[in-house]
């Protein structure tokens, strides 16, 4: 997609628009050819207004003309049914509205083709509905839309044609009425069981207790505000919520990466509120970080080295200062076998693996020692469907060994598949803890901050709408 938008140069092949081959050296040329891109991470200037963001890159001479730009915002937003306040600062807008600004930006450049790169990751289910409607109206206006996603449900709801890619190559075409299982099979190349075979949980005593936890982010804003919950051994508590509602900071505080402002974290009765990551790991916390590439592994290190990244000083792998390379290699071979890590050799750098196999390395590292608590954030983000199946099974197996599992996920599919209980977080506070069979619409409203009782009432009162996500 970056090639299409002129951010990367193709090694080979061509892009054909209206019958003529085109190459783009930079995004400006791509825009001129009518290609607009809605990035997964918004390319907006936070401290600018909506109008100013729309003017960016198309200032039209040395003198700015905010009046005309403002009119253009209003015109476009009413035409495509995307209400936006032209004078609002982008940083004050909810994520869903910021995304609308991204779309408007592309439209303002007279884009005829719009590329959406994983646009739903940051949205609540209701916002996803809105986005789908916008995409439909864009299509009806004659725009071509490329919608990149790994969520099968969304694909089936919106697509007119489906192209399946695997490892950079097109592996097949599908019709929107194909079943999810068929699509998954195309994506993975073999039949996939989308359901997780999960026995009912047998929760034992509380292993992780969090009391009145308050955490600030690096900018000083309170992002976890008075959170209290318990996780029992042998159960999976899913933390659901739209991205950026304090889940990342909650996980970091549990590990000890950020010190909480106040509150208590107890693991098997031992306080970890002031512990360092080293102390919490040694005490038996497994941790799967949200951002695998940044926090999960060292890209230039070998698979074997990454498999002991947080255990390099354990007696198993080191005698005094000296590393025991024999034991490290044996461990790597055993984990490679056990977790089905697809690699030529354990001494290859981990950067040579696919996303799913990288995640297997991380999970193999965390699950290869006795754990009291497993904190896993977005364990299957950007992972192919085949590996998701495997990772989910391993997490459930860990639960069944009596570990308390706290799973942070923004994907309701994953929450539904794995959770024994669901904790919904909104702006750092707890909206409620509900059973996993709670209807998606109710969960969606809760993720927007509506308490459970109210959400069930609202949901019962509204007639069923077009079903994109349930």
């Amino acid at each position: 997609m970056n090639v299409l938008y002129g951010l990367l140069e193709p090694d080979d092949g061509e892009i054909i628009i209206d019958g003529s081959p085109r190459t783009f050296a930079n995004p400006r040329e791509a825009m001129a050819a009518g290609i607009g891109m809605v990035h997964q991470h918004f390319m907006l200037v936070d401290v600018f207004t909506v109008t100013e963001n729309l003017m960016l890159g198309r200032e039209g001479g040395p003198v700015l003309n905010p009046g005309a730009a403002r009119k253009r915002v209003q015109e476009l937003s009413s035409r495509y049914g995307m209400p936006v306040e032209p004078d609002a600062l982008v940083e004050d807008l909810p994520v869903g509205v910021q995304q609308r600004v991204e779309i408007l930006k592309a439209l303002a450049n007279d884009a005829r083709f719009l590329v959406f790169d994983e646009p739903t990751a940051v949205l609540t289910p209701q916002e996803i509905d809105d986005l789908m409607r916008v995409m439909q109206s864009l299509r009806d206006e004659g725009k071509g839309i490329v919608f990149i996603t790994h969520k099968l449900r969304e694909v089936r709801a919106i697509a007119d044609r489906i192209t399946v890619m695997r490892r950079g190559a097109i592996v097949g075409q599908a019709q929107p009425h194909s079943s999810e299982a068929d699509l998954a099979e195309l994506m993975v190349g073999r039949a996939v069981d989308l359901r997780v075979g999960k026995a009912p949980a047998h929760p034992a005593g509380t292993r992780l207790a969090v009391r009145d936890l308050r955490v600030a982010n690096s900018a000083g804003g309170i992002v976890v505000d008075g959170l209290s919950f318990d996780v029992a051994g042998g159960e999976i508590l899913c933390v659901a919520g739209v991205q950026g509602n304090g889940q990342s900071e909650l996980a970091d505080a549990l590990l000890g990466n950020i010190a909480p402002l106040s509150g208590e974290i107890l693991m098997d009765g031992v306080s970890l509120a002031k512990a360092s990551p080293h102390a919490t790991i040694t005490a038996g916390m497994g941790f799967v970080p949200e951002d695998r590439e940044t926090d999960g592994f060292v890209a230039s290190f070998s698979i074997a080295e990454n498999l002991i990244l947080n255990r390099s000083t354990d007696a198993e792998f080191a005698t005094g200062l000296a590393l025991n390379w024999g034991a490290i290699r044996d461990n790597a071979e055993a984990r490679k076998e056990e977790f089905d890590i697809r690699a030529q050799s354990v001494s290859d750098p981990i950067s040579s693996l696919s996303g799913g196999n990288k995640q297997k390395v991380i999970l193999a590292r965390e699950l290869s020692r006795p754990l009291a608590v497993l904190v896993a954030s977005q364990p299957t983000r950007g992972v192919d469907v085949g590996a998701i199946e495997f990772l989910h099974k391993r997490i459930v197996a860990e639960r069944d060994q009596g570990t308390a599992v706290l799973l942070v996920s923004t994907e309701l599919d994953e929450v539904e598949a794995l959770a024994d209980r669901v904790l919904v977080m909104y702006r750092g506070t707890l909206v409620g803890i509900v059973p996993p069979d709670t209807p998606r619409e109710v969960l969606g409203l809760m993720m927007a901050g509506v308490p459970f009782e109210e959400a069930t009432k609202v949901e019962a009162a509204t007639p069923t709408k077009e079903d994109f996500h349930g």
Partner: protein
Amino acid sequence: MAEAATSQVWRERGRTAAITAGSIVLALLAGAVLMVVSDPDVITQYAYLFTAPALPLGATWAKVSNAYGALLLGAIGSPNALAETAWQAAPLICAGLGVGLGFRAGLFNIGAQGQAIWGSIAAAYLGFTLHLPPVIHVIVAVIGGLIAGAIWGGIVGFLKARTGAHEVIVTIMLNYVALQALSWLLSTPAFLRPGRVDPIAPVIAETAAFPILFRQLNVGFFVALAAAGAVWWLLDRSTLGFAIRAVGANPAAAGTAGMNVPNVTIITMALSGLLCGLAGVQYALGPGADLVATPLSIGLVGTVGFDAITVALLGRSKPLGTVFAGLLFGGLHAGGLAMQSIAQTPLTLSTVLQALIVLFVAAPALVGALLPKVKAPATTSLVGGEA
């Protein structure tokens, strides 16, 4: 790496080696061009380039082959030349190891100069004030120099880890402080040679000097090789080295894995300073050109701290690479002296060659473009860390 490398890893290593070799070739070519254009006698011959091409080309060949022949002769042409090369290389290797170790932890230690100065001050002071039996004296002086360098480097690590001060700025400033401290110390009675008023310290006791083995080749060279072995063991075989490499390559992942990133920073800077201090010790306790240890003075350590950066870059922060890089630059320096006296080519040319080699190594794509057979490696990190 202790594990058996796969073909993929070996291919990368082969490309890296090809880039280094290509850089040396290109630097020599560029050096040849410089020699020709700076020599009026050869340039005038080029007036006959189209009428009698043998004249300018012959003159060029004579000039270049003469100079590089002398360079080679002076670097490795005789046992004396080899001894000179090893002698020149020893401090470069030590300081290069120090700078390279910093690189591996993602730290740009520009302060090798200051750390080497302190190493030389401490070693020289212990060398001329104490009166100890032969072997013990030299060991005490070496340890003193190591500690002085480690403290000077450790200060930087501490400031970075505790206050967030950037190590590049702090080390540059501390270089000035070390130099001025040396010049002040040399004016104090403790360091002033009796009966002298100019800033030069007393000659160190013979018991504190590195024993000479052959001509200028002395124990110091083998100390440098031992240091390289120790750094290799530290990086590839020890838990601390594992942490240093992890912090250098990805501090976020290292922190998430429970490693104490600030402590690793402090320890690495102290060890880096220790190795640079050892370079200073080499100057203070090793024999000079006259085969007697040179007394402490302002310019004793030369520019070893800055040369060390180029050595570490060429050696790609790997201990074995650093040894070869140190030997290469030591050879260039030793050979440069011969080139100056035999071929009347200025010594500065060897400095230019040194700079050009590193410049080409730092731009692998350029080498790949100029020498089509050489393919640039996929990973172009010179420093091994994220420095």
